[in-house]
């Protein structure tokens, strides 16, 4: 790596008032033609480009981003990382990602601030208890760490939780994955962008895709706001806008794009050193390194591309947070925002070829894509480079909606996404 970050580079740059740090990634104009183009410069798209260049030796590639990199859902999520999914296919996919997370800072020479502080999922009724215990067993059979905690153990692990039996949704226990945790979301995008750019990937910002040029059953290039760019491999990683891009190629996807909201509080001293999620009341909370409480809410029920979301959703989430953590009753919220998430009917992603040659889609991550960023990029790069899925993403093909072989994480597991 040309400009390796280290304690020595830090000292050297400190002596020159930090004025001589080099640009972390380039800002090129698009070339006329690329071997492959990734549409979408979020974490997943940049990771895809990074692994295409690193593992599959494709050097002439571009990432097109209509805004700025990491300005979409990568910078809008609540940064939770875990792999405790019920089904074998999901467990394989998300644990592959978790293993990559564990070495990502070293791999990228960029501190992604991955913190394995544990993720606890709460059970509030008998069915939750049964489902979560079942999931614990399924996780262990797949080699994923998971333990069941009873109410006293939950209280001991996170003392600020109200475990009183007379609240509306009493805490009957929970599961804990200790290897799970959080990471700095922006750093993930920046780290992959820097790594990809170093290997010659063109990262082109403020370049929106306006059309896909087809010749029969294969793709020939992209119409963009910076002109026509020729390529015969297009990987679309456009999250909430996947259907918009698909429509350009005359494809329909099994997706609905909905606003998902999050909010952060004013910063306070360390009070919660883990991540606590609750599906039944739809409230997730953790604390950032700056001290803000990071709170995740639910999605709206309707399709929208407004990046706003409804107040009643936030209100319901905060009601639940207040009942579970009475200590937060006087906290002030600083910011609230929305991101547009693309949700599949089975709440599992699509990392797949399509019936158009050279057109690949990585979408449908719904409300939980951040945790999969490295794994998603790695597997999508494999799929694009070989024109065949890796065995870990074979189940997440587009054809499952025709064959009926769904990976039903929504209904069966009540897993938060």
């Amino acid at each position: 790596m040309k400009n390796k970050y280290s304690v020595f580079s830090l000292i050297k740059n400190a002596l020159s008032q930090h004025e001589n740090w080099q640009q972390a990634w380039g800002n090129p104009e698009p070339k006329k033609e690329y071997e492959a183009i990734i549409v979408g410069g979020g974490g997943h798209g940049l990771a895809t480009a990074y692994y295409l260049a690193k593992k599959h030796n494709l050097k002439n590639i571009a990432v097109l981003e209509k805004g700025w990199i990491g300005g979409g859902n990568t910078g809008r999520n609540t940064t939770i990382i875990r792999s405790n999914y019920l089904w074998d296919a999901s467990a394989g996919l998300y644990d592959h990602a978790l293993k990559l997370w564990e070495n990502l800072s070293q791999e990228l020479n960029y501190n992604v601030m991955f913190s394995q502080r544990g993720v606890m999922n709460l059970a509030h009724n008998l069915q939750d208890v049964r489902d979560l215990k079942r999931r614990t067993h399924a996780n262990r059979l797949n080699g994923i760490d998971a333990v069941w905690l009873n109410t006293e153990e939950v209280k001991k692990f996170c003392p600020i939780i109200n475990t009183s039996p007379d609240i509306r949704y009493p805490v009957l226990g929970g599961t804990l994955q200790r290897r799970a945790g959080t990471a700095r979301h922006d750093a993930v995008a920046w780290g992959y962008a820097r790594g990809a750019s170093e290997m010659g990937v063109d990262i082109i910002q403020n370049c929106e895709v306006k059309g896909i040029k087809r010749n029969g059953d294969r793709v020939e290039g992209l119409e963009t706001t910076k002109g026509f760019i020729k390529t015969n491999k297009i990987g679309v990683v456009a999250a909430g806008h996947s259907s918009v891009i698909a429509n350009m190629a005359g494809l329909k996807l099994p997706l609905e794009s909905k606003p998902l909201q999050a909010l952060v509080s004013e910063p306070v001293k360390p009070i919660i050193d883990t991540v606590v999620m609750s599906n039944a009341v739809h409230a997730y909370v953790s604390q950032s390194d700056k001290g803000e409480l990071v709170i995740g809410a639910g999605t709206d029920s309707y399709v929208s591309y407004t990046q706003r979301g409804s107040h009643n959703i936030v209100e319901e989430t905060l009601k639940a947070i207040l009942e579970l953590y009475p200590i937060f009753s006087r906290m002030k919220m600083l910011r609230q925002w929305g991101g547009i998430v693309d949700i599949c009917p089975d709440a599992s992603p699509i990392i797949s070829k399509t019936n158009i040659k050279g057109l690949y889609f990585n979408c449908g991550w719904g409300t939980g894509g951040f945790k999969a960023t490295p794994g998603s990029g790695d597997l999508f790069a494999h799929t694009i480079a070989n024109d065949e899925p890796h065995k870990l993403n074979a189940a997440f093909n587009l054809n499952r909606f025709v064959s009926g072989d769904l990976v039903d994480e929504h209904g069966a597991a009540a897993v938060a996404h």
Partner: protein
Amino acid sequence: MFLINCPFCGERDQSEFSSGGEAHIVRPKQPTELSDDEWAEYLFMRKNIKGIQFERWNHVHGCRKWFNIVRDTSNDKILSVYKMGEKPPVNYK
């Protein structure tokens, strides 16, 4: 967050309603004749439009009746409301 003009109750807060998704997806007349592709199209594939979309809503915390609306999903503006069984307004595409 927006207001919806229920054709039966008048203007109410959106939180009183529940969205039924894309409108005018016709239930297959002969389900036994359908191929897997046609089932997938009917059950799962959605236009998911950024722009003007026709959709079904239910006034679930009100009169509990279903109706259709035309809404711009890029800014949540409601352009038209019409009852179930009525033809969609022709001036939107």
